[in-house]
């Protein structure tokens, strides 16, 4: 089910993306300068400046009018030099902005600075009429992915069948009426009722029918019961539409950067919002929202009571961020992340066939770097845990002095059996339930 909706989703996405890109490509043939300037701006300036808002440095829209171009050409490559030389305008500017020294950019020659200024003057290229969809495709809620579309399709098919049947009956009736009017006697059909009754008197058929029924119900029941409480694919709506695809996939942020607990503790831990602010103090995705701060990033600011204009925190306005827990183990099952991702990393990598580039987390959490919104990838049932404990080869742990001693003691292992966690007592109740 998931696969179909995922495919649908990606088809939609690529369609929108394609159209958006083509539209943009058409509309931006001109202003080569500004385009180059935009690239340079993003690379060199955007960590401290935005066009319309104050970050570390002042907002830059209108800077061309505020200062003569000659001044800017000197200021941007080497502002500190200019201040040191005692240029009154430079000193004034330096003092006005809290005496925060601006990085020097000796690599920016005059042409490059001019391009940047051109970009600032023109501003962010407005997306063409059709394009906003491209943005929306990434941000609109995907609340209903959980099989709703499939149910819809099934319902439509069913309705169609019903309509077809009704239409068929009606046309048959009409046909018969016409034939009657024409005086042609038609052979009366054997009524359906009688036919069915006749069929049910055939013992072989009845036997077959009942057998089928039992098998069907039985297997449905079995599957249903087996998967009761299994939440594979659970994907609740989160208070912030946080995209792992963007952060872990496109931006290649290491899992540990946010989930630092996983490598030290039993809890992987959801990052506190100050971790988000390490980047999002500057990264505001304004380019996608008409120069406004992304509404999702704004949620971080609101929760922290942070005012992006004054860059001040107001603790009285802060309120906790209530994420919805995706991976829910029952309270009586003890699971420790560090045991698995630190101690058993190599064994798990080998068992799950992970690429060296992929984090070990993928073994259980799946391809997080492709998840627009996080969902539960593994069933997290006891059977699932145990299977892995039975099958994973941990002979590589011999290098760990702790295991070296334990493994040495095992008679069975000396006989050359495969070393699994199960062999070292990893299936015993008390190892996870206490």
């Amino acid at each position, binding site marked *: 089910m998931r696969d179909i909706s995922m495919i649908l989703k990606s088809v939609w996405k690529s369609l929108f993306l394609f159209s958006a890109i083509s539209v943009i490509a058409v509309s931006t043939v001109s202003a080569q300068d500004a385009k180059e300037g935009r690239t340079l701006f993003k690379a060199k300036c955007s960590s401290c400046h935005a066009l319309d808002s104050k970050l570390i440095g002042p907002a830059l829209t209108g800077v061309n009018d505020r200062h003569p171009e000659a001044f800017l050409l000197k200021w941007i490559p080497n502002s500190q030099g200019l201040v040191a030389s005692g240029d009154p305008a430079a000193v004034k500017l330096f003092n006005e902005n809290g005496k925060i020294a601006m990085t020097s950019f000796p690599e920016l020659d005059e042409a490059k600075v001019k391009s940047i200024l051109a970009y600032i003057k023109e501003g962010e290229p407005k997306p063409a009429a059709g394009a906003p969809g491209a943005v929306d495709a990434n941000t609109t809620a995907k609340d209903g992915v959980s099989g709703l579309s499939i149910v819809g399709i099934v319902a439509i098919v069913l309705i169609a069948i019903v309509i077809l049947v009704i239409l068929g009956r009606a046309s048959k009736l009409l046909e018969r009426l016409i034939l009657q009017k024409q005086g042609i006697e038609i052979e009366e059909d054997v009524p359906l009722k009688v036919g069915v009754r006749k069929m049910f008197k055939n013992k072989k058929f009845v036997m077959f029918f009942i057998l089928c029924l039992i098998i069907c119900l039985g297997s449905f029941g079995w599957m249903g019961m087996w998967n009761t409480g299994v939440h594979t694919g659970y994907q609740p709506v989160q208070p912030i539409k946080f995209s792992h695809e963007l952060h872990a996939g496109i931006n290649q942020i290491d899992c540990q950067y946010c989930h630092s607990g996983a490598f030290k503790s039993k809890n992987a831990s959801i990052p*506190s919002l100050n971790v988000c602010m390490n980047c999002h103090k500057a990264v505001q995705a304004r380019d996608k929202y008409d120069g406004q701060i992304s509404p999702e990033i704004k949620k971080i600011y609101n929760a922290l009571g942070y005012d992006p204009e004054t860059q001040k925190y107001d603790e009285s306005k802060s309120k906790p961020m209530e994420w919805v827990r995706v991976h829910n183990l029952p309270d009586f099952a*003890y699971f420790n992340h560090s045991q698995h991702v630190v101690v058993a990393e190599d064994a798990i990598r080998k068992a799950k066939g992970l690429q060296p580039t992929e984090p070990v987390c993928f073994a259980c959490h799946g391809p997080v770097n492709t998840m627009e919104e996080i969902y539960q990838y593994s069933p997290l049932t006891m059977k699932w845990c145990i299977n892995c404990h039975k099958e994973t080869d941990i002979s590589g742990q011999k290098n760990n002095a702790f295991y070296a001693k334990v493994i040495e003691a095992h008679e069975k292992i000396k006989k050359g059996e495969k070393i699994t966690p199960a062999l070292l007592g990893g299936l015993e*109740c008390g190892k996870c339930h*206490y």
Partner: protein
Amino acid sequence: MESNKKYWKGLEEYNNTPDFVKNNKNEFAEPLPIEDVLNEAGLSTVTPRRDFLKALGFGLGAVTLAACQSTPLKKSIPYLVKPEEVTPGIPNYYTSSFNGQSILVKTREGRPIKIEPNPNAGQFNCGTDARAQASVLDLYDVSKLKAPVLKTKETTWSEVDGFVKSELAKAQASGKKIRIVASTVNSPSTNAVIAGFITKYPATKLVQYDAVSYTGIIQANQNSFGKAVLPKYNFDKADLIVSFGADFLGTWISGEEFTSQYTANRNYKSLENKKMSRHIQFESGMSLTGTNADTRVPIKLSEQGPALIALYNAITGGALPGGTLGNNTTADKVIKLVAKELLQTKGKSLVVCGSNDVSTQILVNAINASIGSYGTTIDLDNPCYLYGGNDAEFNGLVAEMSRGEVGAVLFLNSNPAYDSIDSKKFGDALAKVPTKISFSDRSDETASLCDVVAINHNYLESWGDANAYEGYYSIVQPTINPVFNSRQAEESLLVWADAPVKDYYQFVRNNWETKMLPALGIKWDEVLDKGVVSVTAKPAGAYSFSLSLAAVATSIVNSSKALAKDVELQVYENVPMRDGKSANNAFLQELPDPVSKVTWDNYVAIAPKYAEKLNIKEFDVVTVKGSNGYSVDLPVLVQPGQAQGTVSIALGYGRTKVGKAGNDVGKNAFPFVSFVNGTMQYATTVTLTPTGGHYELAQTQTHHSFEGRNVIREATFKEYLKNPAAGTGKGEEGHKNYDLWDQYEKPGNNWVMAIDLNACTGCGSCIVACNVENNIPVVGRDEVRRRREMHWIRIDRYYSYETKDGDVTREKEIAKLEDLDHVSVVHQPMLCQHCDHAPCETVCPVLATVHSSDGLNHMAYNRCVGTRYCANNCPYKVRRFNWFNYWNDSRFDNYLNNEFTQLVLNPDVTTRSRGVMEKCSMCIQRIQGGKLQAKIEKRPLKDGDIKMACQEACSANAIIFGDSNDPNSEVSKALRSERIYYVLEEINVKPGIGYMTKIRNTDTTVQA
């Protein structure tokens, strides 16, 4: 293998009463109505078809409706800004101190959940007592006030400050006195704060008083040696300890410290060096210390003075008058022997006395001086500052107040309306004080009479320090932000005194950095890290006693005569409740008294023969009327070993305004205390009148019986010296063993335990430590009566006495009822033995309890269906059944059934639900945690990496845990001791816990 000694836990077991026999046959005391259900309405009645259909329809509908509910969303709420030092899932430890004792506080995600002893504390690192272990629960007490109170209304701090400042100024201006009433203040910073307060309001004086006072010793030392101090006692340097009514292993001065000193000369290491101290106890009520004595002699309270005089005369050859013990011939005989022994062990012996009478203590000083204790076993130069209260000063204060001379009074950590000797007189006097301020955290007996309750922090929220001994300082640091709108008392005093530094943290730090640290050359951060600072101790000087004892002897004889009337009453602190300050702590209320095993009540303890003489039976309610007219109705407990003609009542009960759990538990015995010769006296005379009522005490002593099987092995020190395996039953021909079970190898680790019965004093701090560590519910008095206490570790207390004439029948023993005065006692910690051939595992129909490859008996709660077969089949009776959902049942509201108190839970241990079995898991969360730590650090597990909660708390180091596959581990060494035996080893369940025989140092050369 079997000795002639009989061991029994309670008189009902001893006498084999019908009730006991009946109850003992069943695993669970109350019969379940299964038979009734099956016989009556169950199978014979007919359910009409319509009823059946109705039920079916309703059931189907209900289930459908219930199933309609969507899966509940679980929220996951991270920190907004995570403190750098916090990693969710990993505990942080902070040093702090509790009553002067340095501790480590374990916190998880910013909430303290466990108290552990501080290994940095050097010689003062001696486990923790039950009170310290339980104290973490006080932080999460719902009965505390949530904001300061002004004239019975909750208010803000600025209102309080405004009011108090103007009132204090008024009191100061009017020339009236201002008094701060506090229990002993030994914190240098608090003293500095008070000094600053006195500078601002010069009419102020600090009055220190302790609910249970040591003024007698302090004044006696002043009199004898010119040093008004409580000395430091060195029980570890004493080969012979003679105690007259001092419960030094339990409640006297510093129980856990003395326990660790005392057991250092008696534990298995000491015994292997063929060394063991000898301990003789003279006392009236059976105390924890008395139960551990090698020889215990019951004496009446009125005989204590004469006994000391007799001892003095016997040692020095003096002839003080009054040293006659009347008809207590045993005591008379023993005193003479003890005198000889004391002279033999000069300089290596110690005499202590629990009396608070100055004269008596002067005499004790004289005895100690004559046996050369000063400079060796008693150290007057590094005194103890744990108690410094002055009884006379407090009495003077009450007089001042009633004369209307006091303008304002402040109560710091004191509650005289409950624990002063005459609370009515105190209340009347207090009413004449215009401004009354309490720093209590709740509206207790005193605070409810005050105008202002300036609620103080819990100690886990506070900054501070303590100076328990000369040159030994410990720090108090907060481990959680204040939960309620409370403010530290010291900070309140700083604010009211308009001190320049009002932040108490800054004040403490300044105080240390200016006064103490420069001389020591250490930094403040190091102090916080270590938790303690020790200055090199001064050499203990020898002191000689040169005063005349004539007046002292007269005074002793006179008070003894005044007391020698029927019935002599001793009021005492018991180990769980102490002075009653933590009466609202459910863990302590449910901790069985180490001797009587009574929970949730105090009682009148009376000797069996004396009870018979007075025609009083156990659990009869009697009216106890004191000579001062105060009377209470209390149930009777028949206590073997209680001196004839005496009764004992524990203090600390009968609180009325302490909170949900502690209100109206037992009766207040403080009014029986009298003020004689300038000090509080804890002995008086009373009359007993049966009311005809009956009240069943919730006593755990016979709840888990071994059916008279021989589980205690003991030997005398003499026998031990001849044969270290004496008494263990080793070397005797046993029966042939057959195994029902296969042998399994334990290649990795094999977790086992050794328990030294000679070190265990039975104090019970392990029980509380286990409760806190493993989220063990408190069940309350009624459920304890039904034998449903949930403690995973219990301490079985067995009485016995030597019978000389071979096999004795029960009838003959009962005939010699007076022998019950001279019982000897053994304490045996009993917990899941993690048997290799566990009988519980065989009978579990769902395999909820199974064995692990590292020697543990696992219990999977979520698999258990509650058949309770395992509990029935357990020979050690260590399995506990959850009869209720104790965490979520309004019937248990007083204890832990609220969200706030539940913050004390250990997040690494599941809370069990109704209908499942539980038992000691050998702190498996600690084992797994220790292993993981080693795995992450890529090193083999070291011995001592993993410690059990009970082991850590034990002051006596009686519990040794470790891996028996490691031949060099401490536990392997201990298990190789010849003294090791296994409880019920004859049934071949192969328990994982070895016990070391109890050794008594009874027969010495002197006696021969």
